[in-house]
């Protein structure tokens, strides 16, 4: 392939022709691919792709933040964010089951950060090929065998709205399917990830931090320390960004008084802060009794998300809980001097 744009066009075409396909890209590659990325959801093709997060140039480099994949949030791809290599491996297998489910037929992006996941080596268990084959029956696209003539025909404007609404409905159904597939995977392979969202050390807490991707592992260690110190703060790992787990967050909002969202991305000139925080604010808006919301930018352009930074953010969240109000809605944590020198 001469470029990522063509690579995605070929992946979509191969999927339509009945092949199970996989591709991967990062940063500029994903951005360059974007026009073709709209093809698989629109054509309901279950392509699976790894988006290895890397900051987009020129305000980036080789190291990761989440802007490259988050930029694709409106395309209709399911997006699952992974914490470490083990979860990446397990999620790729799950991704095919989700994508190829006849209730879904949408592409799935398995997102994980460069360096902190992609170049980091940890002991990783590889499932048995036979067991994976049992879990993933051969790919057969039932929509295509039902309506092959529709593939080349440009839809009428009325049908476009209908087709888009169908993608939206498939996204809504994906919430249940992602959980179902994860549960079955856990039963068969002994590793599960709580579907779209995981609450960690959240028993009897008043506040939570929300993280995505590799920083979650670091945050687990910090939250354990804080709980050990008697601080009422837990951790919520957002695994599924698309579809966004609105219902789960609304249910959590009844239990937690303060939520701190950690965004490893920027949205310049946004309504306020990062992409995850804005998404969450919309999810919680209709509630009468909303928790306080704090937002932090951290790990931009691939800088490290450190123990000190996570501790700092947790302390701001706890401070808001004690005071009952938010002093700073959005904070750029990396610009603070927390005494770390690499």
């Amino acid at each position, binding site marked *: 392939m001469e470029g990522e744009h063509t690579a995605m066009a070929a992946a979509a075409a191969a999927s339509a022709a009945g092949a199970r396909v996989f591709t991967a890209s990062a940063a500029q590659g994903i951005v360059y691919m974007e026009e073709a990325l709209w093809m698989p959801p629109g054509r309901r093709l279950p392509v699976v792709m790894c988006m290895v997060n890397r900051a987009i140039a020129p305000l980036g*480099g080789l190291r990761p933040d989440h802007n490259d994949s988050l930029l694709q949030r409106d395309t209709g791809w399911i997006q699952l964010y992974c914490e470490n290599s083990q979860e990446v491996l397990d999620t790729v297998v799950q991704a095919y089951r989700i994508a190829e489910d006849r209730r879904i037929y949408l592409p799935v992006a398995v997102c994980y950060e460069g*360096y902190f*996941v992609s170049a980091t080596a*940890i002991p990783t268990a590889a499932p048995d090929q036979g067991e994976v084959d049992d879990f993933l029956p051969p790919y057969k696209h039932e929509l295509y065998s039902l309506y092959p003539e529709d593939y080349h025909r440009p839809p009428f404007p009325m049908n476009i709205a209908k087709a888009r609404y169908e993608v939206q409905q498939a996204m809504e159904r994906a919430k249940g399917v992602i959980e179902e597939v994860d549960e079955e995977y856990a039963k068969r392979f002994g590793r599960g990830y709580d579907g779209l969202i995981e609450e960690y050390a959240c028993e009897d807490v008043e506040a939570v931090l929300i993280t995505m991707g*590799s920083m979650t*592992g*670091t945050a*687990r*260690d910090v939250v354990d320390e804080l709980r050990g110190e008697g601080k009422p703060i837990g951790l919520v790992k957002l695994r599924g960004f698309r579809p966004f787990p609105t219902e789960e967050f609304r249910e959590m909002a009844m239990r937690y008084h303060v939520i701190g969202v950690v965004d490893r991305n920027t949205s310049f000139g946004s309504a306020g802060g990062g992409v995850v925080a804005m998404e969450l604010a919309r999810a919680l808006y209709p509630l009468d009794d909303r928790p306080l919301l704090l937002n932090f930018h951290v790990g931009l352009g691939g800088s490290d998300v*450190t123990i000190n930074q996570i501790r700092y953010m947790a302390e701001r969240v706890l401070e808001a809980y004690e005071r009952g109000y938010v002093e700073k809605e959005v904070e750029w944590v990396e610009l603070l001097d927390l005494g770390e020198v690499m």
Partner: protein
Amino acid sequence: MGGQGAVLGTLLLAEAAFREGKWAQKIPVYGGMRRGGAVTVFLRIDEKPIRRSCGIYEPDAIVVLDPALIKVEATRTGLRKGGIAVLNYRGKPEEVNLGVELSKVATIDATAISTDLFGPRAIPITNTVMLGAVSRATRWVKLESLYEAIRRQFPGRIGELNVEACERGYESVEVWEA
């Protein structure tokens, strides 16, 4: 420095620890990978699964593959009292002063051993020699586990040469203890 095998050497060390039933995590930190560019690699070894993915700011030990980097301030940043330094350095360990009271300093002329085994190169590959030195100085991994990791990574003659490099690193390193 890139090209000296810091990333692969650390992976071998991680694998050796894993072979002994421990959990290990290797995180490389570099820009574009290129021969001669500075490369830092972090390694954690633990009895239980390692969850944190952040870099290491206060290492228990530093291993320096290139003698030119010993004098660089960034090399010793975070090295704490009671820590361990394993250096590719021609002098005696007693001569080394990194500005902090260490529990152990180990020195070895890894460049000379590498040149002897692999022939003269513009950028000598010192990683497996240094692994032997690390095993002796830290006692964190057994020499045999390193051999197994090296042989798996490089089957055949190259592997055996590197096993020899590792063994010579283990035998030749001079360790000063506080």
